[in-house]
């Protein structure tokens, strides 16, 4: 009886499998070749000798959709829709890395040169050359004569442009980027000496433990019996031990770049995770751009991102976002005097930003800056507040410096949640009826499942949570990187990290403290808005404020 059944099943199988649905198409378009682990490291760009001018033309075609004369590339998509390169460039779908992408049911294949210009094994495909690349880009026909999906544009490219594009694709690597070898992947986290030692220790306790556990979880994959019989079918080693270096920066900000370079030259890292740069991540951001290193979610009050920067990601715009939230709140309000009080450089920058936001309005802007080691100079403050009625006061201060400041009745007062830190309440006992906390985080008192998760993680490891927000940020940065590394599969490429960050939307569930986080291709900041919470008798009124995303 059994034998008959088996016979029937065997008979049926070809019938059933012949009903190939649309998935067949996707699977073939993917045409991801299997590169054996051994050859990965040896994979070198096809285009050599490298002509930098040609590569730049290719890069502009690929990333910006622009021809050498600055005009946008043109193409036809979904049969009859004319599109421009500025609306839709190669890196959009295939990634800056050329590693392809997935969105819903659409799978975009890898087109990095070492794979594109080599024969693929599963499924079988001949190596692309210039002629077949021309055919597939212009007509959408593969070397085997198959018509590729109509989401892939049919481009109008000159022969010269094709050559440049091919050279650029050839320059895209399949990795590994520096910091990775067969058994380890090296990261760094950057802390500056203008953070408190307790904060540093708290954050590093989380990061070090995370890295240590990653390494302990080796699944002995590389020692498994028979990892395939042919080089092509052999499994690549997914797991690599984590090494986490701590790069401490000291002294003046102007010297940080040099210190970063020295650390990097000693031990190149694949990416930089988390970190504590409360005052300014600027030198780190520039270092990461120069060396093409992903700089993932450092803790800072003052994120910086230049135009066209690719490599840094931040939780939010920090104090700059707070300034914009205040400006939004003041939009409809008439007032004569703006007084901003601060001691830190990051707060000075926020004060600048608020004044810029209010440009064009007739407001008497005043400032009180003092040394953070001193107490808030109350006498001088009172001098600035001769007539509190009609004034707005922004206290860009931490809790210690707030303890002796007055909250004059008649003035509208703002406090900074970022500077106050974790223990917000009781905020200020003597607060008048128009005091507000600028809060670009989750509403206090609401359930934060991601924090609970992290809390459980730390408690079971005897790590004390002293700075929930900073430690939560560190934990998420490490967890995000761990998830990204998993998705890198065998392609340890830094630009692929950036591409995957753009698609990390699913990870937002695990982010504590922040509200409404979103990831997206090219998006630098994870959380984009905040609340202005009324302070009543030192307590926050969380029920009456709307989430606001400032338009500045």
């Amino acid at each position: 009886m059994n034998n008959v059944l088996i016979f029937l099943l065997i008979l049926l199988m070809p019938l059933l499998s012949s009903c190939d649905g649309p998935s067949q198409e996707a699977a073939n378009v993917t045409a991801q070749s299997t590169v054996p682990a051994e050859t990965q490291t040896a994979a070198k760009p096809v285009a050599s000798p490298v002509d930098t001018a040609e590569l730049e033309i290719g890069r502009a075609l690929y990333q910006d959709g622009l021809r050498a004369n600055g005009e946008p590339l043109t193409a036809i998509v979904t049969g009859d829709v004319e599109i421009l390169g500025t609306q839709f460039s190669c890196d959009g779908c295939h990634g800056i890395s050329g590693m392809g992408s997935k969105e819903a049911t659409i799978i975009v294949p890898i087109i990095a040169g070492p794979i594109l210009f080599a024969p693929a094994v599963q499924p079988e495909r001949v190596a692309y050359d210039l002629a077949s690349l021309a055919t597939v880009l212009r007509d959408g026909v593969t070397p085997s004569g198959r018509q590729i999906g109509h989401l892939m544009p049919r481009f109008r490219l000159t022969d010269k442009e094709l050559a440049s594009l091919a050279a650029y694709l050839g320059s895209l690597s399949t990795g590994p980027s520096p910091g990775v070898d067969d058994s380890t992947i090296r990261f760094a986290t950057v802390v500056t000496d203008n953070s408190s030692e307790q904060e540093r220790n708290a954050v590093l306790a989380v990061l070090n433990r995370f890295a240590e556990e990653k390494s302990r979880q080796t699944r002995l994959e590389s020692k498994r019996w028979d990892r395939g019989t042919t080089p092509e079918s052999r499994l690549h080693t997914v797991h690599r031990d984590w090494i986490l270096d701590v790069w401490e920066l000291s002294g003046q900000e102007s010297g940080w770049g040099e210190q970063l370079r020295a650390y990097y030259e000693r031990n190149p890292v694949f990416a930089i995770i988390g970190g504590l740069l409360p005052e300014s991540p600027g030198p780190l951001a520039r270092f990461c751009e120069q060396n093409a290193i992903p700089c993932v979610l450092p803790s800072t009050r003052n994120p910086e991102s230049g135009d066209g920067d690719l490599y840094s990601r931040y939780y939010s715009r920090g104090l700059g976002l707070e300034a914009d939230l205040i400006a939004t709140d003041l939009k409809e309000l008439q007032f004569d005097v703006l007084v901003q009080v601060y001691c830190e450089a990051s707060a000075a920058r926020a004060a600048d930003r608020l004044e810029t936001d209010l440009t064009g309005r007739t407001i008497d802007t005043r400032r009180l800056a003092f040394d953070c080691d001193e107490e808030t100079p109350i006498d001088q403050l009172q001098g600035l507040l001769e007539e509190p009625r009609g004034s707005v006061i922004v206290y860009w201060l931490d809790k210690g410096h707030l303890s002796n400041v007055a909250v004059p009745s008649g003035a509208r007062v703002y406090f900074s949640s970022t500077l106050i830190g974790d223990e917000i309440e009781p905020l200020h006992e003597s607060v008048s009826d128009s005091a507000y906390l600028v809060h670009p985080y989750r509403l206090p008192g609401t359930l934060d499942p991601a924090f609970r998760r992290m809390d459980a993680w730390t408690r079971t490891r005897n790590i004390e949570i002293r700075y929930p927000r900073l430690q939560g940020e560190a934990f998420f940065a490490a967890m995000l990187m761990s998830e990204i590394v998993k998705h890198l599969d065998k392609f340890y490429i830094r630009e692929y990290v950036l591409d995957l960050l753009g698609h990390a939307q699913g990870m937002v569930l695990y982010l504590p403290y922040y509200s409404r986080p979103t990831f997206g291709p090219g998006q630098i900041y994870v959380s984009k808005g905040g609340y202005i919470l009324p302070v009543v008798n030192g307590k926050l009124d969380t029920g009456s404020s709307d989430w606001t995303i400032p338009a500045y």
Partner: protein
Amino acid sequence: MRFAKILLPVLATFSLILAQLSLVHAEDRSLYYGGREVEGVSERHEGHEGHGGHDHSMHMKMMQQQDYSVNPKTYSIPDVTLLDANGNEVSMAKLLSADRPVALNFIFTTCTTICPVMTATFAKMQRELDREQLDRLQVISISIDPEYDRPEVLRSYAKLFNADESWLFLTGRSEDINAVMRAFDAYAGSKMNHQPLSFLRKTPQQPWLRVEGLASGKSLANLVDQNLFD
């Protein structure tokens, strides 16, 4: 016999999976061909396999054919207030109760795969319509990433695609956008599961036509012409 005992469950599982696959595919077909009263649907292109050869006229023909399905659906859209690209409030109830045909899709500006294509396709569809149709048809694109796509972001996006003034790009509060997406059965949990969907409707009293897949601009225009105008 012992060998068979091991092999049988394996084969049975395997064939079950295959049977499942073919079932899904069959449903897929009936779904498509089930759209009876829908006019102007070009023939579904049944995958590219099996055509073989290098006949370029065949390829050109195939390029014109699209993988998409059209189905009439009734949706009840919540009355939420969204924001247009100029920051003005727009009541969805008011917008959709106007006695004019509507073409609607969901996009986000940092979406790199299907959104630019969907937006360009809507633009192409508009160009395919005649003047009167263009004036009558209310085109709406709703951002599913409202945290990032603020009105000013939508404004530059509209400009990038040379969108007609009458084309509304909407954003708003995440809760409201999600409610609208759910109402259109377009909510996929994450914007990264964003499917290519377009929705067409003649009058507030009539059902929506749900277009799943990437239709060409001309096919969409045909659907609009034949179903949304007399």
